[in-house]
């Protein structure tokens, strides 16, 4: 989808939000969620193309598949956590948003453990054995 369309959609959505906020505050929040969904689902096809290019480049450079897959998973987790955190922050639940961010960081760290251990093993192999 074109960038102009996305901008117009978000401007229209903010007008609807301002109208609906006084009449029916619960429905105004649904508008926020729906705008997020619309924008991301129009962008996700392009993200798929970019990832295909990254994967083919990685295969040509013979990077192990584990690393690229981990990186893509980390990007996905970061995006989902950011989405949830901003939604809950919009609803006024700041502490829940902080907890979601913490959970996202923990899961990212968990996914990064194999890479970290590989790096540390490589460093240990460089060290001279006495």
């Amino acid at each position, binding site marked *: 989808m074109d960038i102009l369309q996305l901008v117009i*959609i978000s401007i229209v959505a903010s007008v609807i939000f301002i*109208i609906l906020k006084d009449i*029916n505050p619960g429905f105004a929040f649904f*508008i926020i*969620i729906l705008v997020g969904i*619309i924008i991301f*689902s129009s962008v996700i096809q392009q993200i798929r193309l970019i990832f295909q290019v990254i994967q083919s480049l990685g295969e040509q450079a013979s990077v192990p598949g584990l690393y690229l897959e981990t990186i893509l*998973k980390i990007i996905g987790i970061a*995006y989902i956590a950011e989405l949830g955190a901003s939604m809950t922050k919009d609803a006024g639940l700041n502490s829940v948003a902080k907890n979601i961010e913490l959970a996202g960081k923990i899961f990212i760290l968990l996914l990064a453990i194999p890479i970290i251990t590989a790096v540390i093993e490589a460093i240990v192999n460089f060290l001279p054995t006495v």
Partner: protein
Amino acid sequence: MLTDISVLFQIAGIGIILALIHTILKQMGKEEIAQFATLVGFIIVLYIVINGLSDLFNQIKSVFLF
């Protein structure tokens, strides 16, 4: 898949009409029925939004290789 702006207008319309129904029923003195109408409208909109969210999460799953 929700890539259309019409769903935004749908939600806005449902919200405005529900507020109208709520006010009218309240004026008629039927408080419980007004609450019930609001609840039903809320459930309808929640159904739309949850469907969209599940679509979005499935797409994220398929793209980010989960």
